[in-house]
């Protein structure tokens, strides 16, 4: 039995409760274990973003609750919640992830600095990640000097740097051409295996979905299919 990271119970999000209620999310149960590489797919408006926002502690469910590593985050408020996100969850958004006035290196270390990690540890980690994402030569470039794919790789590295419980990525490849998208996914997959990092991401892109180990399909706020995770990573991570 693998360690549970995300546990969502009976999650619903209802908009316009007073007029015509819209169920953006309808009684969803979701359980994700450490090391999983999960894609969430579904047509536009099916509730992917809503679900990710709930388990990322960015939005409050109308019903149900979310536990991250045993902590019920639905009860957290204000700064507690922000701090929880800072220390436990890595975020990658569709675009404009990076702080435009900081260099690639500074963006990657940003979260570790907010966490007040020791400088030595931070520097080491950033160096290691820059290598892993293949951007050692872009250390001092600002985001606008990087391609869209490079920017997303830096965003993944930033999310990964402090070794959070899991990384949430809402359509991380939506703004990328297919080559960059595949490259980003390969990189994520590699990090998933090397660091046993849990990834949950949403996507429309079939080629991206093919790389996932587990695929959850949403429709009208409900999970309509959940293909079982392929038990890959165990041996691969151990052989490393």
């Amino acid at each position: 039995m693998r360690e549970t990271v995300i546990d969502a119970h009976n999650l619903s999000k209802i908009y316009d409760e007073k007029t015509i209620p819209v169920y953006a999310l309808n009684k969803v149960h979701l359980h994700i274990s450490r090391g999983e590489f999960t894609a969430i797919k579904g047509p536009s408006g099916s509730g992917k973003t809503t679900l990710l926002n709930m388990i990322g502690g960015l939005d409050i469910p109308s019903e149900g609750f979310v536990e991250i590593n045993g902590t019920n985050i639905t009860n957290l408020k204000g700064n507690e919640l922000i701090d929880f996100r800072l220390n436990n969850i890595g975020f990658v958004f569709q675009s404009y992830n990076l702080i435009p006035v900081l260099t690639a290196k500074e963006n990657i270390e940003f979260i570790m600095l907010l966490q007040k990690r020791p400088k030595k540890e931070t520097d080491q980690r950033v160096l290691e990640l820059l290598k892993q994402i293949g951007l050692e030569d872009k250390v001092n470039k600002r985001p606008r000097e990087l391609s869209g794919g490079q920017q997303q790789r830096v965003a993944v590295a930033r999310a990964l740097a402090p070794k959070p419980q899991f990384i949430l990525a809402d359509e991380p490849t939506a703004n990328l051409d297919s080559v960059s998208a595949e490259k980003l996914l390969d990189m994520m997959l590699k990090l998933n295996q090397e660091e046993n990092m849990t990834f949950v991401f949403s996507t429309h892109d079939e080629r991206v979905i093919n790389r996932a180990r587990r695929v959850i399909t949403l429709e009208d706020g409900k999970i309509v299919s959940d293909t079982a995770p392929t038990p890959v990573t165990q041996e691969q991570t151990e052989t490393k």
Partner: protein
Amino acid sequence: MILKLIWRNLWRNSRRTLITVASIAFAVLFAILMKSFQNGVFKNLIKNVVGYYSGYVQIHQKGYWDEQVLDNSFVVESSLIPQLQQNANIKVIVPRLETFVLASKGNTSKGCLLVGTDPVNENKLTHLKDKLIKGSYFENNEEAVLLAEGMAKRLEVSVNDTIVLFGQGFHGVMAAGKYKIKGIIHLAAPAMNDSFVYLPLGATQYFLGAENRLTSISLGIDDSKNTNAIAKKVKSRIGQKYEVMPWQELMPEISNHIKADSFSFYVFSGILYIIIGFGLFGTVLMMTAERKYEFGMLIAIGMKKSKLELVLLGETLFITLFGVILGIVLSLPLVIYLKENPIRFGGQMAKAYEQFGFEALFPTDFDPNIFITQSLIVLAMAVLIGLYPLWHVSGLDPVKTMKK
């Protein structure tokens, strides 16, 4: 890291930042210059008016100012002058005995104001020697008068002629005396030029039978801005017996003129600052609107709102601080230069001024307080404006802001 973010964000849109800095600098420069000018002009005006005759502060017997007669004169106590001399801000002490008498030569006579004074100190306060147009200056123990130009014309006399003074002395005694004219003086104010006669104090007291008596003591001080403080101090020591009046009470018209003019400065600079304030607010508003998504992202990934607010407030304060410092750096040499090289007006204006014996000179006043006050006003305004992004961030919901 906070500082790094503030600094880099400032140069994100460097043109906008520079324009904002420049506009703040201009406002500070303008306000400082205007205020320094105004203070300089006032100081000069006060110095001129006060140096005419009255002095910055006068001491009289209680009741003298309302009824200016010899019977309201006072005997100088031996402790009074030393007490005044102790005050380091008081630079000159001019004892005077003043009354109206009749001056005549032959069949012509004319009423005049006889001023008995100490020639040396009188000159220190009112520069009487400089007003001499004929003859020479009088000395302490002389029985000789300086006659104002208008008087001399009326009586058709000149230097070395003798005039007779008649009048009522202390307690109504008859006073009469013959005095040689030692010099003719030109007094700028026509009323004074037509009626003043100066005689050394000792001779005047003897003439009026008012041994050891004075009607007023006029004080010259180091800086006009200390007037009220000095008047207060003197009052607290001798106010029981004497009336102590600063020039504002002696010449309320001038004091009111200055008050009205100061008020117009406050209105003007207020408007200036409001305009600049809106400019700064515009910058802050644009900056906040442009970066909404970024703020949402930062809060989403775990940056505390308070930290983000610190960055934003820092940006506003830095811009303002740069502007203020630039404004000071630019105005400092200008104010100092214009103090040393006052602007000199020509034409009608100069003539009008010269009629009253003023040089048409407008030096600025170099007063660090002006710099400090104007800077603080602008900074306070910036803090107020800087609160807007804080308010914006405090109500920011990352999910809503990041929705495309």
